[in-house]
């Protein structure tokens, strides 16, 4: 049985109301947009790479609490990381939020990202929780443009 507090925990609501790194970098080296056509959500992710390291990151967009909080926490978690570390984190995060509902998360400790563990109980919200991550990955891979959840 899913519980609302699994989804709308304190950290998620805090990041929704006061998103961190809520900005677009004027000197971005990498950027991409993400869209969820079903709910009309739209997000832009900009990154500045110094060599292989993510030296700065910012996002802006219109979305639900889950998508905005996921973007905000993501920016904090991947700042300072290398490209491959960021992509690796996305793989683990995605595995956590897409695991079978009702099963406890038994993977590696993902630190602050663990607050999104409850998303797995709400399969229709997985797209919200991964929208910014998909955009970040597209930006790093240089594919640019807009990635869509559909």
């Amino acid at each position, binding site marked *: *049985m899913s519980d*609302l507090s699994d*989804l709308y925990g304190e950290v998620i*609501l805090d990041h929704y109301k006061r998103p961190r790194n809520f900005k677009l970098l004027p000197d971005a080296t990498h950027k991409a947009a993400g869209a969820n056509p079903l*709910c*009309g959500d739209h997000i832009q992710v900009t990154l500045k790479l110094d060599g292989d390291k993510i030296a700065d990151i910012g996002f802006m967009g*219109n979305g639900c609490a*889950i998508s905005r909080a996921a973007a905000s926490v993501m920016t904090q978690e991947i700042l300072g990381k290398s490209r491959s570390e960021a992509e690796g984190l996305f793989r683990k995060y995605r595995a956590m939020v897409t695991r079978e509902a009702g099963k406890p998360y038994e993977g590696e400790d993902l630190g602050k990202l663990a607050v999104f563990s409850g998303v797995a109980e*709400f399969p*229709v919200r997985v797209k919200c929780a991964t929208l910014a991550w998909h955009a970040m990955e597209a930006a790093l891979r240089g594919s640019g443009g807009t990635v869509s959840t559909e």
Partner: protein
Amino acid sequence: MKAVESHGSKVEGAVIDWLKVRNDFPALRQQVRGKPLVYLDNAATSQKPQVVIDAVREYYEQHNANIHRGVHWLSEQATIAYEGVRKKVARFINAADPRECVFVRGATEGINLVAQTFGRRKIGKGDEILLSALEHHSNIVPWQLLCEEKGATIRVIPMNDAGELLVDEFAKLLSPRTKLVAVTHVSNALGTITPIKRIASMAKLAGVTVLVDGAQAVPHQPVDVHDIGADFYIFSGHKMCAPTGIGVAWAPLILWDSLPPWQGGGDMISSVSFEKSTWAEVPAKFEAGTPHIEGVVGLGAAIDYLAAIGMDRIAAREKTLLQAFEAAIRRVPGTRLVGTAKEKAGVASFVMEGIHPHDIGTIADQEGVALRTGHHCAQPVMTRLGLAATARASVAFYNTPEEALALESAIRRVSEVFGA
């Protein structure tokens, strides 16, 4: 039928026991997430009464055969049932002749049928199609595809902030280039009832063909295609208690006769050789292949069911319910109704300060309340109102005033979760 013993106008004045009517719908008896289901997504699709479910089952148990083909008894029975429903449809919308009612998969297919037949034959380079700002994507995209092919242009009848069409602006848009006006009867996103009779009569004066998307109107109010005066009137079965995958495209015989066939195949031909085929008469001309016979049978049962209650009573009941639901939404601080037209049917769209509709939908769902959230396949409506999305409660006659209170408490829960 259990809920109402007599039929049509004979029950005039009789009081309907709406709770008994509600009991005709098995899906409404279930619990969702430990709470009684409060189904408020009727504009997306309606629930089905037992009589419709039984009619479909009985068709497969007793009458299943292909129509218009076999000389055998069962095929004859299936054909009688299928064509019998066409007569019911005609009576239900006051069509002059059952042959005017073409069975399609739903309103979307009906509009595409008109675009591919009337549109391709009568609309050309430089012509204009007028759509309204309230349209569902299904009454926009088929015309865009046509315009791309033909070099025609779409122009939009604007609306005000309440969601009412500006008829004076419509008058200005009508020109010798206008070949078609395609307008919804009731908006799926905002619930606005459009002044369709006025629009049709103004268009007719200008010699322009009129298509009405009736998907949100036929389930909720009496519809008389003659009185409306449009050329095409299109609706879906699944929003009016019938199965999915069945709908109706209505037009006068003379108009259907003037149009080329659409899909080719069995049932739509008079004779076929490899050199040339000739077409069957309307409506068979537009019903290629084995149709959705069970859907048609279910549609017939749904029409009987609705007609026995009375569409005027259903409209009155839903008006009262809508007022209760709108009042319930307004009582929660921080909410705002979107779509406040004077003439409305069935839909209460709303937003909450600082809370995305998607989150409203998830939290309401935890309370057993089924809402639709998003752009409702009407993105231009959202864009016009400066919104990305709304939450939408859409009612049917089987909803109850108590469910308005359940919605209110679900919305209060949303506020609590967000600490508002």
